[in-house]
C-alpha cells in the first residue's frame, strides 16, 4: 500500500506496467486499440499510446541488428525498460525507476543514478512470472479473447492486474533477491522408505478418483512430490509460496482435513478461504493451458494439491469427502516421521558459510541465506550480478569475489547448476577460500558431480 503512493527514491519502484498487442491496430488512428492494459490507469490515453509506440519502436529498432533473441531490456539513465513477449504477439512491458540519490557536489546538487542496483535477470523473471500467474488463474489471453472478445479480456486483465500490482508486484520488485528470482522448488529431503510410503499413499489416493490427474504433496513449504510437469510444478509451487504459505503457517495445526482456496480479489491477509467441505478452484495448467479443477487439502502441515480434469466427481460432496477421509489415517501415520525430521534439522551447518543452490534442470533450489537478516545491502547486488555473469559460462565456471570488509562470494556454474557460496572469513586469502570451497563441495555436495 505504502509503496504505491510515496516511494523512496533509493529503492527501485514500478513506474508503469502495460500489455499491448500490435496486431489489434490495423490502421493509423486506432493505436489505442492495441492497449490491453495500462498501469497506472490514470495516465492520459495519448501518453499511453506514445509510451507503447516508443517501446515498439525500440524493439523493432533492435531487431535490425539481427540478434536471435528479441530485446528484453533497455537501460536508460532514469528508467529501465523490460519487455516480455508472450503468446506470439502480445507484449508485456514494465518500466522501473532507477534508484537515485541527490548529492551536493561543488555547490550543485547532482542526482546520481545507481543503474547497477537493478538486476535485469531478476526483474525479467518477475515480469514473466506476473504473466504466468495470470495464466494460471485465467488461462491464456488468446483463449480469453476467443469466446468473449477483446473488451472482456481487457476487463479481466484490469481486474486482475490492478489487484496484483497493488498487492504483489510492488513488493516483489522491492524485495527481490537471487533466491526469489529462481522461482525454484525447494524439495524436502525424505528418507527413501518414507518417500516410497508417501508415493504409495498418493498413488492409491489418485486411483480412487477417475478424473484426478495428478497430485502435489508438500510438507510445510517444501515439496515432496509432484506428478505435474516441471513448469506447472514450479508455477503452482511459487503460487503456493506466494498465496498459501504465509497464511497456512499462521493457522492452527490440526489433524482435521481442511480445504483451501484463494480469493485473489481480497486483501492478501484474508484471501485464504478455509472450509471443511470440498471446495475447488479453477487453474489453467499444461501447454496449452487448459482448465483444471484444483482441490487443496490441508492436514496438519501437509498440503496436497489435487488436480482434477473436471469437477464431475467433485459435484458429489459426500462421496468425495468420504473418499478423502479414508486416507486421513495414512497421512496421520506418516506425520510423526516428518515432525521428527524437521526437529533434527539445522545441526551441522557452518555458521560462516551460506550457500545458494539452484539446478535449472529440475528447478531444485535451496538456500541457507536469510535475506532479512543479511545486513549488507550491496551483497544482494553482488550475488545477483555474479549469478547473471555465470550465464556466460558453458558448461562450467567459477568466480571468487571479495570486497573490502565483505565476505567472500564464490559463484560457480556446473552445466545446469548454479551455486553461490558466501563465506564469512574476511581474513582468508584466495588459497584458503579455494580449499574451503573444495571442502564444502566434498561434504555438502558430495552426491552430485560438479564440473570444474
Amino acid at each position, binding site marked *: 500500500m505504502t509503496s504505491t503512493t510515496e516511494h523512496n527514491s533509493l529503492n527501485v519502484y514500478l513506474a508503469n506496467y502495460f500489455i499491448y498487442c500490435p496486431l489489434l491496430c490495423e490502421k493509423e488512428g486506432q493505436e489505442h486499440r492495441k492497449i490491453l492494459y495500462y498501469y497506472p490507469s490514470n495516465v492520459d490515453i495519448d501518453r499511453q499510446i506514445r509510451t507503447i509506440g516508443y517501446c515498439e519502436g525500440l524493439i523493432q529498432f533492435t531487431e535490425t541488428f539481427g540478434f536471435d533473441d528479441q530485446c528484453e531490456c533497455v537501460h536508460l539513465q532514469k528508467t529501465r525498460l523490460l519487455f516480455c513477449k508472450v503468446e506470439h504477439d502480445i507484449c508485456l512491458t514494465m518500466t522501473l525507476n532507477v534508484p537515485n540519490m541527490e548529492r551536493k557536489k561543488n555547490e550543485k546538487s547532482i542526482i546520481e543514478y545507481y543503474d547497477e542496483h537493478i538486476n535485469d535477470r531478476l526483474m525479467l523473471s518477475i515480469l514473466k512470472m506476473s504473466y504466468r500467474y495470470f495464466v494460471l488463474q485465467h488461462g491464456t489471453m488468446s483463449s480469453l479473447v476467443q469466446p468473449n472478445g477483446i473488451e472482456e479480456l481487457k476487463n479481466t486483465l484490469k481486474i486482475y492486474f490492478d489487484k496484483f500490482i497493488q498487492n504483489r508486484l510492488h513488493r516483489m520488485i522491492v524485495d527481490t533477491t537471487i533466491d526469489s528470482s529462481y522461482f525454484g522448488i525447494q524439495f524436502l529431503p525424505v528418507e527413501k522408505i518414507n*518417500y*516410497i510410503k508417501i508415493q504409495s499413499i498418493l498413488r492409491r489416493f489418485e486411483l480412487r478418483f477417475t478424473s484426478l490427474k495428478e497430485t502435489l504433496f508438500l510438507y510445510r513449504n517444501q515439496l515432496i512430490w509432484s506428478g505435474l*510437469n516441471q513448469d506447472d510444478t514450479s508455477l503452482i509451487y511459487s503460487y503456493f509460496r506466494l498465496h498459501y504459505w504465509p497464511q497456512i503457517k499462521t493457522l492452527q495445526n490440526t489433524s482435521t482435513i481442511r480445504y483451501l482456496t484463494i480469493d485473489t480479489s481480497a486483501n492478501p491477509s484474508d484471501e485464504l478461504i478455509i472450509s471443511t467441505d470440498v471446495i475447488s478452484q479453477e487453474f489453467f495448467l499444461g501447454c*496449452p493451458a487448459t482448465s483444471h479443477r484444483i482441490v487443496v487439502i490441508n492436514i496438519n502441515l501437509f498440503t496436497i494439491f489435487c488436480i482434477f480434469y473436471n469437477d464431475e466427481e467433485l459435484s458429489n460432496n459426500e462421496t468425495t469427502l468420504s473418499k478423502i477421509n479414508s486416507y486421513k489415517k495414512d497421512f496421520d501415520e506418516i506425520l510423526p516421521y516428518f515432525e521428527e525430521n524437521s526437529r533434527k534439522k539445522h545441526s551441522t551447518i557452518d555458521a560462516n558459510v551460506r550457500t545458494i543452490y539452484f*539446478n535449472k534442470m*529440475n528447478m531444485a533450489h535451496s538456500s541457507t541465506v536469510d535475506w532479512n537478516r543479511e545486513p549488507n545491502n550491496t551483497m544482494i547486488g553482488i550475488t545477483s550480478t555474479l549469478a547473471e555473469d555465470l550465464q556466460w559460462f558453458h558448461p562450467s565456471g567459477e568466480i571468487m569475489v571479495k570486497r573490502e570488509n565483505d565476505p567472500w562470494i564464490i559463484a560457480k556454474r556446473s552445466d545446469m547448476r548454479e551455486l553461490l557460496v558466501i563465506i564469512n572469513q574476511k581474513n582468508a586469502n584466495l588459497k584458503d577460500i579455494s580449499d574451503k570451497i573444495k571442502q564444502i563441495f566434498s561434504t555438502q555436495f558430495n552426491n552430485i*558431480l560438479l564440473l570444474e
Partner: protein
Amino acid sequence: MTNNQSGYFLKLSSQPIVFEPISNGTSVFYDKDNQQLFCVRGSGAMENTDSFRFIRRKKQNRRIISNSTINENQLSFNQEQLIKNIENKIDIIYKSYFWKQFEKNFLYWINQQITSIDILSYGLGHISSSICSQYQYALLKLIEKLFENKIENIYLYDPIWTKDENNFLENHNTYSKYIILKENNQANQIINRSSFIYIPFCSKPIHNNLLYSNWNKKNLNEILFFGNSLEKFSNEIKFDQKKFFYIYQATNFSIEISLPLFEHYINAFNEQVFTLFNHNIISIINENKIIQLKNKKNEKSIENKNQLEKITIEQLSEDIWSLHIKPIYTNEDEIVVSSYCVTVKGQRHEQAYSFRLEDKGAIQSIKFNPDLSVLAIKRNSNSVEFLNFAPIPQITSSTRPSISTTATILQSDAIEYSQLSKTKSSKLYDFNWLSDKEIVFVTDQSIEHYLLNAEKRTLRPLKHYPIPNTNWQLFSREMNLLLISAGSPSGNSLIPFSFHKMQQQQLVKLPKFEVDLPQAQSIMQRSNSIASNSSLSSSQSTNRRCYELTERDCMLATIYDKAYLLVIRQVFRVAGQGSVEVVLYQIETDHKPAQKRHILRLNLYGKCALNVVDNLILIHHQPTKTTYIYDIEENSTSQYDGFQTIHEPLLSQLSIQPINVNWQLASSTISTSSTTIELYSSNWIVFLPNVIIDVKMGCLWYLSINLDYLLDLIPDRLLLIDILLRRINGKSSILTLLRTLLTNVIAPVQIDSNNLSNISASNVLDCWIEIIDRINRVFIENSSNRPLLDQSDIYSVLSLFSTIASVSTIGTTTTYNRSLSITSSDTISDDNHQTKALKFATSVVIEYIRSLNGFNIQVQYFIYELLVNLLVKNNQFFQLQQLIQYQVLTDSLKLACLLLSLSNKQQPTTQIALDMLKRLTNANEEIVEILLGHNFVIEALHFCMEHIPITRTLARKLLEAALKSDEILSSTTSNQKLLFFTVYTFFEEYFQHTTTISALAQLPTTNDKDDLEMFKTLFNLHFRNQDTDVANIQ
C-alpha cells in the same frame, strides 16, 4: 475363463503305472517308502487269493510235487480239525443266499443234461491252510453231496498240493468219485460227457486250454464253467487276442451268469461266474443282453474292437471250429510254479524292473532297501529272507524313451539268506528298511534293529527293544519315524520312535501318547480280521472301528514341515447321524508327548480315504464320490478353541477329473481302446501322500492338484494368494493370477458390468499391495515348501505393461483440436486412457519396489528399467528425476547408462546419470568418456586430475578430444586450437615434472612415446614455429 484344463482341481496322473490286476494270480505290494509297486505273478502270494499255477513244459523247469521244497512240517495239519472246519463251512455255504442262487442255476443246467456229469476241478489250493481253498472245497463237497446220483467222476488237480493234502483228499473221498490227477496235463482235458468245470480263480491259460481241448460244438454245449469271467479276461488291459484266442472267440457266444456275493467270506467266490455256451439251456437269460452287433470282427475301424458280435453257438461260422492251434505261451506270460515273476514299478526309479524269485511260500511282505541292492521278503511269521541284487544297469533315457513299456530284468544273487526274529515265540508283523544297511523288525513283543552286511550275507543285531503287546506299526522313512501301537488292546496307545538317517544305530524312543477314542460303552474284542469291503454290513464294521484304533485309520504325514499322525474317526454326535473327523497329532522330536493339534471336520458319514498333496489334506468321501480339501494353515476356515484348531473344508465337494486310460500308451499290447476309469471306486487303495491304486484295473496313479482351478473358484484374491503361497507349485498359478489382475485394468474386457466395480484400478492396486507384500514375505522367509517368486518372475508379469502404447508428446493436441471432430476427441480419450494405464502401471511397479525395500531385498536392474520406461512413455521425466533424487531408484552403472541413452530426448537426463556415476565412485572412466562426448574437454581434464591416475594413454585420449573439440568450435568462432594448446601444455608440464618420479616407474613403452610424438609435432607446428612467441605465451 473356464477351460478344460482348469475344470477340475484334482487330477490323476495321465499315465498311470499299469500292473497286472490283483485278481488273476497276481498279488501286488506297495512299498510307500521307496514308492515302489511290487507285482508278484504266479503265486497265491496273498493269503486269500489262491490261484492255479502251471508247470512249464520245459524239462529243466518241471517240478513234481514230491520234489517240492515246501517244508512238510510246516504244512502238516490236523486232518480231523480240517474235516470239522470244512463241514462247518459247508453248513455256512448251505445257508447262504449265494448258494440258493448257485443251486438254482446249477440245478437248471444239470437237469438239461442227458447223461450224468463229470466234475473237473483245478487249482483249489492249499486246503490245509487257506480259508479260501477251504470254502471252495466245501462248495465242491456240497455239490457232491446234493447231486451225488448225477455225478460220474470228479477229477481233482492242483500241483501245489502236498502229500498230506493228497492223502487227505483221498481219505476224504466219501463218495469214491475222486480221481486225483497226478500228471500235469496243462488242463488240456477233453471231456467225456457233460461236465461241470470248477475252476475258481484260475488263470487265463487254464481257461484257454480247456476251451482249446474241447473246441467243438458238441463239447462246448455240454460244459458249464464256474470260474473267472471270460468277458472280464477279454476286457483286461493287456488282453492278447492271439495268445488267448479261444477265450477271445468264446466270448462271442458265451453266456455268463453272475452270482450274488458270498457275504461270509467274500474272497472265496468273489466275481466268479457260471459260463456256458448252449443258449437253449438257459431260459432265464435276458434276451436284451444279447446285442446283435452288425460289425464284423475283422473290421478295424470299429470303435470297440474287443467287443465281438454276440451270437449263439449255432450261429457261429464253421471255420472257427476248424481252427485248431495249440496255444503257445511265452516265458513272459507263463506263470511259473517255481518262481515268481516280480515286476517292480515306481516313480522313484522311473524304470520298471523285473526279476524272478524262488517259490518258497506265499509272500507276505516284500521291500527293497533304498538303493535297490538288497531285497527283503517276509514269507512267514518269524523270519525275513534277503536277496542281494547286482547294481541296476544304468539306462540312459535317450536310448529308451518309452520307459513304461519295457522292464529291465534285474539279476539276483543266487543265495538267499534269512534272519529269524530274536524272540522265538513272537510273531513278526513287518520289517522296515531304515537305510541301505539298517532294518527294523517289528514283532508282537519287540522291535529288533539289525545291521546288514550284504557282502557277508549276515545281519548283526544292534538293539532290541522289548515292547509287549504290539498291535501294529506305522513307518515312514521320509519322516524318520516308526510308530508302534502297543500296550492297550484298543490300539490307541502309541509309541513313536525316531531314527537318524545319517547317524547310524540310533533309534530314539519318544514319549508315548494316547489317541483318544470316542467313549465306548463296552470294550469290544479286537478282531484280527481287517478284511472289509464296501458292501460289508456297515453298521457292524463302523461300530468296531469307533472303539479301537486300527492301522487302517492311522497315517503318518509331514504337513508344513511338521510330523503328524492323522487319525480318521467316525463320530456320532447326534443319534443316527454320523460325521467324519480327521484328528492330527503333532509328533514332536523334543521329547514332549505328541499333541492333538488339529481336527478336520466333515459333516458326512461313511468310508473315507486321505491324501496329502502339497500340504493340503484331501479327504475322499467314497459314498458321495467327492473330495474335501483342508488347509491347516488357513485361518479363515478354522477356529482355535483353546486346545485344538478345528478346521472346516477349504474346498468342498470337488471331484477328480474323469480320466481315460489309453492302454496302448500304458502297455505294449496291440489293443488300442481307452477306458474310462471309475473314480472313487471301492477297489481303490489310497496311500499317503498321493498314491491311488485301483487293484482291479491294475493302475497306480499319483494324485495331483491343479491350482489354476482355484483362480476361478475363489473370488477373494487375498485368500487365494494365501492358499497359493502355501503350495510348492503355486508359482505359475500366482503368476497367472497376477497377470489377470493387472490385465483387467490396463486392457479391460468389458464382459459384465457387475464385475467392473471390483476391478477398478484403485481396488486392484490395493489388492496388489497386499499380494506383493505376501509374496515377498514368503520369499524372504525362504522356506522350502513355498513358492518363491523372485524379481524375474514378477517381471514376467509386469512386462505386460510394455504393451501399453506411449502417450503422444506434450503439446501436439491443441485446444483447437478438441472441438474439431469426433476422431480427435477419440485420440484424446485414447491418450487419456493410456495415461491412466501408464500411471497405474507405474504405481504397480513402485509398489513392488516399495515392498522389496520393505523386506530389504535388493531391487534388480530390470525392475528399474521397466519403471524408467513407463515414466518415459508417459513423458514423466520430471517424476523420474524426483524418484532418482529420492533414491527410489538405486544407483547403478546400468541405470546410469539407461539414463544416458534417454538423454537425447526432450529432457536432459545426462546430469542425473553423471551424478549417479559419481556416487558410484567406481565409474570415473565413464564420467570422463561422457564429458569428452559432450566436448567438455577442460572439465574432463580437471576431473582426471582429481580422480584418475594420469597416464600417457589418458593424455592421448584427451589430446585427441581437444583437437576434435577445437575443430567444432573453429566453425563458429575464431578459435585457434585453444583447447589443444591448454591440454598439451598441461601434459607437457605434468610429464616433465613426473618423469623422474612416477612416469619412470611406469616404464612407458616406445609405442606410447610415439603416440604423444604425433601431438608434439602438431603442437610445434602450430605454436612453436615462432620460438619467441612461444616463450612469451609460456
